[in-house]
């Protein structure tokens, strides 16, 4: 009798354990999209060692990657869009502060050297954004985007224009370069080149569809010339170190993009080649020697944007038609076949895709 009671008593914890086990087991059946959270880059090891040094951003934090490991740099704050000065001595980066954002100069270890812009105000209307810093090849001029002036009709128009200012000067010395298409969000992604400026313009067609196009412009407020057609929806241009190739992201629809490369003469764009397609590619950046691209693309069901490396094959004999009469380039060709195989560099870190890697 005692033995049976003991057995019964022993059975209760067994039942409890089994019930708990079922509970825990059901929890393991959750989707990976729900379970997977991004890790800090510093606790991960890149799968592939990239040449040189690269700066990337994860959720407002700056990271430096070299020799196959990550180091977090910079003070706390909501940092993004690092750009390297041509002498490789400084970074220019954006810090967001709720209602505004400012450009800062940092040394290569992330220490703040100086604050370049001052866009905050107690009055919401007098706040401004500053994004997409880029330094001219001679290192003297800083190009960036800001929502100045604001245009007001019924609703306050907040659209980005490209501005420039002396990198060691004052914000009041700033000069507006572009006149955006109002209420589209404006012009973005400036890249200073020898002949002027490359940037992305957002516009609207007569079917109310908003497009992005890569433009080139020779001087401030001059008429800009389109390098790509409206329906190509190309954006995020990245110029190779020797200035002869332009990488860009083009969108076939709202949920897929292509990574494309085209020769660039300084004023005209040659035939575009699709080097990657079939996913959401973002933030292309050329390797220091101009033979490869780094870019972001989502991985797995969690959709985290990871860093990828792609050796770009040299251009074959151009087979695409010449640029259209509007100045915009013709439809791209897929090149080569099969497409080169990209290498995944990071895993599980979810890098900020709107902050292209800065690589030297």
């Amino acid at each position, binding site marked *: 009798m005692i033995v049976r009671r003991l057995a019964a008593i022993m059975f209760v914890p067994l039942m409890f354990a089994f019930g708990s086990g079922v509970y825990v087991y059901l929890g393991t059946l959750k989707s990976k999209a729900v379970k997977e959270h991004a890790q800090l880059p510093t606790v991960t090891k890149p799968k592939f060692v990239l040449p040189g040094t690269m700066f990337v951003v994860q959720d407002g934090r700056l990271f430096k990657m070299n020799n196959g490991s990550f180091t977090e740099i910079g003070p706390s704050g909501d940092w993004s869009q690092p750009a390297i000065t041509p002498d490789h001595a400084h970074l220019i980066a954006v810090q967001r502060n709720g209602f505004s954002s400012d450009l800062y100069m940092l040394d290569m270890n992330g220490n703040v050297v100086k604050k370049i812009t001052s866009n905050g105000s107690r009055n919401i209307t007098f706040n401004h954004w500053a994004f997409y810093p880029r330094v001219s090849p001679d290192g003297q001029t800083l190009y960036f985007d800001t929502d100045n002036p604001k245009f007001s009709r019924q609703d*306050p128009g907040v659209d980005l224009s490209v501005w420039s200012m002396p990198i060691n000067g004052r914000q009041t010395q700033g000069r507006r370069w572009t006149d955006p298409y109002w209420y589209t969000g404006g012009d973005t992604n400036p890249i200073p080149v020898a002949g002027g400026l490359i940037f992305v313009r957002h516009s609207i067609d007569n079917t109310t569809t908003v497009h992005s196009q890569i433009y080139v412009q020779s001087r401030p407020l001059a008429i800009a010339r389109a390098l790509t057609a409206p329906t190509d929806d190309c954006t995020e241009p990245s110029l190779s170190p020797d200035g002869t190739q332009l990488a860009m992201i083009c969108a076939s629809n709202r949920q897929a993009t292509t990574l494309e490369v085209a020769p660039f003469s300084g004023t005209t764009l040659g035939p575009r080649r699709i080097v990657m397609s079939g996913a959401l590619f*973002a933030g292309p950046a050329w390797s220091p020697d101009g033979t490869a691209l780094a870019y972001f693309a989502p991985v797995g069901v969690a959709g985290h944007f990871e860093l990828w490396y792609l050796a770009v094959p040299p251009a074959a004999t151009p087979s695409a038609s010449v640029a259209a009469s509007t100045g915009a380039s013709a439809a791209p060709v897929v090149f080569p076949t099969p497409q080169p195989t990209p290498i995944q560099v990071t895993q599980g870190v979810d890098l900020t895709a709107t902050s292209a890697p800065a690589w030297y």
Partner: protein
Amino acid sequence: MAGKTPPRRRRASRLHPGRLIVLTLFCLLLSGTAGAAAYFFPVVVAGVGQTGQTVVVPPTATVGSRPVAAATAPPGSPFTVLLLGSDDDQKFDPNHVLTQSMILVRVNPQTRHVVMESIPRDLWVHLSAGGYAKIDAAYAYGGPAAAIATVQNNFHVHIDEYAWIGLKGLIKLIDLFGGVDVNVMNPVLDDQYPNDIDVKFLYGYQRVAVLPGPQHLDGTHALEYVRSRHNDINGDFGRSARQQQVLLALKAKASTLTPADLPDIVSALSGEFKTSMGLDRVRSLLGLANAFDASNVQQVILYVPTYTSYGQISGQSVLIPHWSQILAVTRANFP
């Protein structure tokens, strides 16, 4: 003593091994069921409280007409859902909120085809509750039944189900899914974005800047993306297109979910979600999300000037419907 038989010593009964096995299995089944019941308890609670909401839809706008329950489509056949999204902060009585987003969705499980038609919130229509107003007021004047009846009466469609979600619910849902991947086609900047989530003063503004390009958005930033409208050249239409885009991105994430995710989902949506769909249909929809391809999703937006035109009525900026065009496109997509 004689004649008295000694008490017979009760023989200790031995449990037959077969009975022991049966008893063990029964106990394990019982405890396993208890474990599963504990796991899915929030789903059951939500199933009672938030799903399977009974809606009595008046068939016409005629005052005094007898309301009848809308017939729902049989399982496996095409059905139409009215998706409603609202500001649901403390500025409003929870039962009288405006619907910032109204999307008609037709799902055909057999052809795996989905159509989404966004209804502009400023569309000037006859409400089922009587009188004319912007269509976003229909829900405020009579809850889901009035919203459904207003859409049915004006668009000449039959709505089988509805689902309503509040702002915080959308944030929590997207965060639970680990964010969504979208390609932001142009910068979304807004100096008059409502600063009304988890703040004491509900009537302030904040500045929003969602930069262009492919990116991973968390719940808060995804909400900014789908809610902002002040600096969009397409106004509310641009916002509708962004809402449909995020819905598609959510669909992509939903296709990876399993029934084991349901407790987390209902916990995230607690008080922020109501639907006429029963748990069975919600579960089957999750399964369907896997089967639908983005190329089989058709998106309809009632742009100016084809379907609507801008106007001023009673001092309000409204959209005047061009019913012949609207009904033609609606009839074609919602037979």
